[in-house]
């Protein structure tokens, strides 16, 4: 293998993982934009989405061990995505309803939200471990995974293509939704000044719920995509969650396009960093990026809040 091939291979791998980080990061960024609150439990939404999609696929994949092909494969991927998104959305709704809303109603201080979210996270992933077992679970093979194209020596598999294409579609959809729709307008209004938006007739409570659910839908679908490569397990949320959060901060938290940029960049940094240094330090790399960005440029690369032109 020549070194140019390795470089493009690492870039492709990094971009694929980065796209997943971006999808999860959107959830952090949207919620942050609206509530100025880091949703610590978002990683568990991601995990539950992965299980949701996985179980749906398992129920549908024929048990004879044959790998589906063609339309059946595409349909199964879609089912997985939808089920994952649904599970994620439901989890996010429940989270908002049970761990956040009572606090908001009381006007609790920020620290309370953080702690409540940490508690919810502990609860959710350990309960998932109890109900779904503590072993890693693979997503059944939904299509034959083989190399489709070779770009500059990098082999791109069906799976990478599926993941990248889906992630891209979701990112575009969210960007459109936030930038161009009425719902997006109210989200941006609440992000900029919740009180004022409330006075102007925006149903703030509803916008918050919708934002949570939107983040949950994305994270759930992202969880399913993630599980296709890396299997699902009850502890799977934590590390990608932290990394997605890093991506959100890197791009500028509260900024939708920033989250995408941050995710892709972080994926690349990690992929190359893991190759050049020690793969054990991949998490250290991510944390170092996080700390560095927070200390040097807390507003991130693009640095604007949700609702202001990027």
């Amino acid at each position, binding site marked *: 293998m020549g070194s140019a091939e390795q470089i493009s291979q690492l870039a492709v791998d990094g971009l694929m993982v980065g796209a997943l980080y971006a999808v999860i990061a959107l959830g952090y960024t949207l919620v942050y934009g609206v509530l100025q609150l880091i949703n610590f439990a978002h990683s568990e939404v991601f995990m539950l989405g992965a299980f949701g999609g996985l179980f749906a696929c398992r129920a549908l994949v024929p048990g004879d*061990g044959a790998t589906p092909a063609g339309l059946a494969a595409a349909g199964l991927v879609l089912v997985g995505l939808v089920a994952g998104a649904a599970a994620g959305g439901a989890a996010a709704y429940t989270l908002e309803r049970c761990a956040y809303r009572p606090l908001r109603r009381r006007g609790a201080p920020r620290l309370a939200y953080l702690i409540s979210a940490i508690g919810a996270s502990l609860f959710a992933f350990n309960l998932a471990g109890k109900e779904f077992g503590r072993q890693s679970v693979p997503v059944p093979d939904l299509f034959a995974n083989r190399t489709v194209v070779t770009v500059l020596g990098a082999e791109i598999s069906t799976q990478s293509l599926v993941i990248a294409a889906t992630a891209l579609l979701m990112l575009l959809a969210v960007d459109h939704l936030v930038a161009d729709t009425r719902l997006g307008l109210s989200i941006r209004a609440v992000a900029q000044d919740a009180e004022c938006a409330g006075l102007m007739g925006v149903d703030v409570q509803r916008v918050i719920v919708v934002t949570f659910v939107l983040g949950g839908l994305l994270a759930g679908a992202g969880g399913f995509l993630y599980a296709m490569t890396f299997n699902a397990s009850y502890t799977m949320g934590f590390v990608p969650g932290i990394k997605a959060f890093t991506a959100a901060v890197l791009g500028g938290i509260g900024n939708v396009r920033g989250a995408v940029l941050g995710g892709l960049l972080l994926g690349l940094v990690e992929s190359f960093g893991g*190759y050049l240094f020690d793969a054990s330090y991949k998490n250290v790399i991510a944390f170092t990026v996080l700390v560095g960005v927070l200390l040097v440029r807390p507003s991130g690369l693009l640095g604007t809040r949700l609702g202001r032109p990027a």
Partner: protein
Amino acid sequence: MTATPRPLRTRPARTVALRPMAALVAGFALVGAALTACGGDSDDGGKKEYLIGFQGPLSGDSQQLGINAYNGVLTAVEQLNGDKSLPFTLRIVASDDQGLPEQGPTAAQKLIDNPKLMAVVGPVFSGPTKSSEPLYSQAGLLSVSPSATNPALTDLGFTSFYRVIAPDTVQGAAAAEFLAKVVKAKRVYSLDDRSEYGTGLSGAIERGLEQADVPFTHDGINPTKDYTSQATKIMADGADAVYYSGYYPEYALLTKALRGKGYDGAILSGDGSNDDQFIRQAGTANAEGALITCPCSDANTDPSAAAFVAEYKKVNSGLKPGTYSGEAYDATNAIASVLRKLGTDANRESVRTAFGSVDMPGVTKRIKFERNGDVQGSTVYVYQVKDGQRTVLGPVSSLIKP
């Protein structure tokens, strides 16, 4: 003197009223938990009862290995209790250490506190063994591990520690030999998971490879999910065999990543990966052809262990023995053989002193100990995934000859 201060709220009724719920729910949870506990044990005739302890992970991420071992102990105990010629009955007391070193002392102490308890099968993992053995040695309570393979454990001066499994040095040497002579690897990529077990095994393998003059690259990676850049690194290294010293969840992901990139060299791992979960988690197609070394025979395919397998299935409602089940069964039987000799007036001290001279056939190997508590001699077997099934290729020694 005054009303207690209480914030006024817009919805006082709800918020205030829900207040006691935290306590109530906690109460329900506790009662419910108690409900799940089953009733007491019934006494069995007039025979003397000895207790046998079990220490291992019965919950947590690695619970499967602990459960395998526990079921092995259970099988032996059920079988022995069915034997009318024994002057005593046996009962198991299990203590869960979750496989974590910091849980070890408490788990061990629970067993030590029970005066009727004569010996312990366990601890299952090396970490808790290190933290628990000082207590067992102090209490003079015999503990026989079915699976703690860290080489150093028998050199730490524990006076009541034995194990019925060969340390990783034995497996490492055999694996290196297998790589050099059967796989005929020109270059080996030795990767460990930086755990106590993994580093011990990879170290032993690398010493063996040095002796066999096979060049190798050493690398370590903490358990993670994303092995893609590691796979790129391995392929860039040009090694035609990869040996992963670690456990099956990571071995599965590594195999998946390597095969996904079209790696066509040999992929191997050790006893920590010797579980059907590996095939499941890697996907049948990816796992095909993967090799696993283990200082354990597969009772399921070993004709001499057929009786054990049948008994195991009977006791454990149809489950097949897993990794370490046979070893735990042997450890229990070895303890029982000492008790049988001592009759009804055994005590901890007599059991411990008599155990060093045990010499009996077991289902996994002959059970006979070195002075330091290591089991004598051991065979390392090689397994391969064929058609989605783990199958035994045979002992390393016999694979080398042809």
